């Protein structure tokens, strides 16, 4: 923060060159912000305009002829809520399992005395270099009978070796004395992990929770390969049908005449984007302070 104060002081005796320079910096920044925010505002505005205005290309920034018809149509469509509910389930259960198992992997690996430390480290690290590839993984998962089971969205993506490494170095940074003291007083490793180690690395776990939750919420690949039952499909599969495969399923449920349908196709799609993006838009600003820590965790001293 002090570095910024030092820069700020400069502003008081800024030369003409500095003023021009800052103008360029601001133009660049404003362009960057507009590029990131405008597409979402546009999508929202189209969602809330009348079909006619959208069709005539009148919507550029703000909604024209405020109209909630498209929103109502989409929110009234049952499959949206089925897939949304599935995604919330996969995200909630999946993230909890991810974090629990990441801790269970990372804690033993962080204990220097652990007799299989080296072997286990290798077991995990090797998977970051090499994998069996798509087809062998696909055969193993289907032959295990996981096809079209809800578990398939959670179990095969249980642990990310990269996140274990991050978690491990967080445990390693906790003072060894704390662990030794607890062990002398007779605490076992489960007690030490849950009561001492986990509370001490809360900031790291917050970041890992965020990463895992976003990955589970956005997971499309597992579902595309292993889920065909529409009562189990997650939101991303539903979105793909509507946004990319030109599915007319939502329009067919309503009794608008065909002319109106062609007007509202693009609107229905944009409403779906809005509905799916809202949770993320709400969460990211709340957790942004953890993001900075998160990226710093990425580089583990080797």
């Amino acid at each position, binding site marked *: 923060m002090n*570095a910024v104060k030092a820069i700020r002081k400069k502003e008081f005796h800024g030369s003409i060159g500095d003023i021009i320079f800052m103008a360029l910096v601001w133009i660049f920044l404003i362009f960057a912000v507009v590029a990131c925010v405008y597409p979402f505002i546009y999508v929202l505005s189209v969602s809330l305009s009348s079909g006619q205005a959208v069709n005539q290309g009148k919507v550029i920034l703000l909604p024209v002829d405020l109209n909630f018809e498209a929103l109502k149509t989409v929110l009234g469509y049952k499959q949206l809520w089925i897939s949304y509910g599935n995604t919330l389930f996969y995200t909630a259960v999946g993230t909890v399992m991810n974090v629990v198992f990441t801790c269970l992997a990372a804690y033993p690996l962080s204990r220097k*005395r*652990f007799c299989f430390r080296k072997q286990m480290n290798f077991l995990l690290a090797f998977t970051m270099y090499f994998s069996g590839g798509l*087809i062998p993984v696909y055969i193993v998962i289907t032959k295990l009978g996981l096809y079209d089971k809800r578990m398939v969205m959670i179990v095969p993506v249980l642990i990310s070796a990269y996140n274990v490494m991050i978690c491990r170095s967080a445990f390693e940074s906790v003072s060894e004395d704390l662990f030794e003291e607890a062990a002398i007083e007779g605490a076992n490793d489960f007690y030490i992990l849950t009561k001492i180690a986990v509370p001490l690395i809360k900031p790291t776990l917050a970041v890992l929770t965020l990463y895992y939750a976003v990955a589970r919420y956005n997971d499309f690949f597992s579902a595309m390969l292993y889920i065909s039952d529409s009562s189990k499909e997650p939101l991303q599969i539903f979105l793909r049908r509507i946004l990319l495969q030109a599915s007319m399923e939502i329009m067919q449920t309503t009794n608008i005449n065909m002319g109106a349908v062609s007007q509202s196709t693009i609107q229905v799609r944009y409403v779906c984007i809005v509905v799916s993006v809202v949770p993320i838009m709400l969460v990211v600003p709340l957790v942004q302070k953890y993001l900075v820590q998160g990226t*710093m965790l990425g580089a583990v001293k080797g």
Partner: protein
Amino acid sequence: MSGESKKKSWKQLLYRDRYLLIMIIPVVIYYLVFCYLPMTGIIMAFNHYQVGSGFAGIYTSKWVGMKWFNQFFGSIYLGRLVRNTFLLQFFSLIFGFPIPILFAVAVTQVANKKARKVIQVSTYLPYFISTVVVCGMINNFLSPSGGIINQLLNKIGIESINFMNLPQWFRPIYVISGSWQSFGFNSIIFVAAIMGISPDLYEAMDVDGANRRQIIWHLVLPSIRPTIILLLIMSLGTMMSVGFEKVYLLYNTAVYETADVIQTYVYRQGIQSNNYSYATAVGLFNSVINFVIVFAANKISRRVTDTAIW
């Protein structure tokens, strides 16, 4: 202490670490089943696995040696897939790598803390949006019927372009949308590095009468040079691993010429056409290349910056 532990027998060690072992057993099972068991399935690349052979068929199907590799190396796909995979990553790096650095330098020039936060958070947002939604937005924005880009082009008198069906547009679309999505997030680490520069150094340059440009050129950029080098080496490790999902969701038969990558080809051959063994062979080819590249990148990283990814 260490002398004492050396004397302990294996039995004693296992007993002492019993709780750690209980913790790690489910983890080991996970890795054996979902990572190492599939690795043994690589043997399919050398035999003729047929649909319906069951799990045992992976190991017992008829041995065909290098047949699938010869088929792949003799086909027109080898060159096209390797070229497309490499070029998508290469252009993503060339175009996508400098932007987060420029952005980080620019955003740290803003003195007002609140303004800086607002700017940063709004640029993080695209990073967290799913690939499906990003591709859906690209597809609909660029659509020749009602997409905003073509609407704007029409307004200035240019005829609609069918972007998604023209091979020459695939790489620009992929690369630009990719760096749109990630530049804000990728800038975080550079912003942190710039914030970490000692204020004394700024003061010193200030006293010497340096202007902003000189401060950036002679202080800020040299200070974040190690971070830049480290991240550059790390991204070299991903040179032959294109994100499968995004290509899969964006491409169509009209643009295979520039869009088809190794991973999508493996998917089509294996999952869609049931040529499991052939697809495994092509996948193995990709895995081996990736292994070599990641390994090399990590070695270089250790040597140059004393930091490795793991």
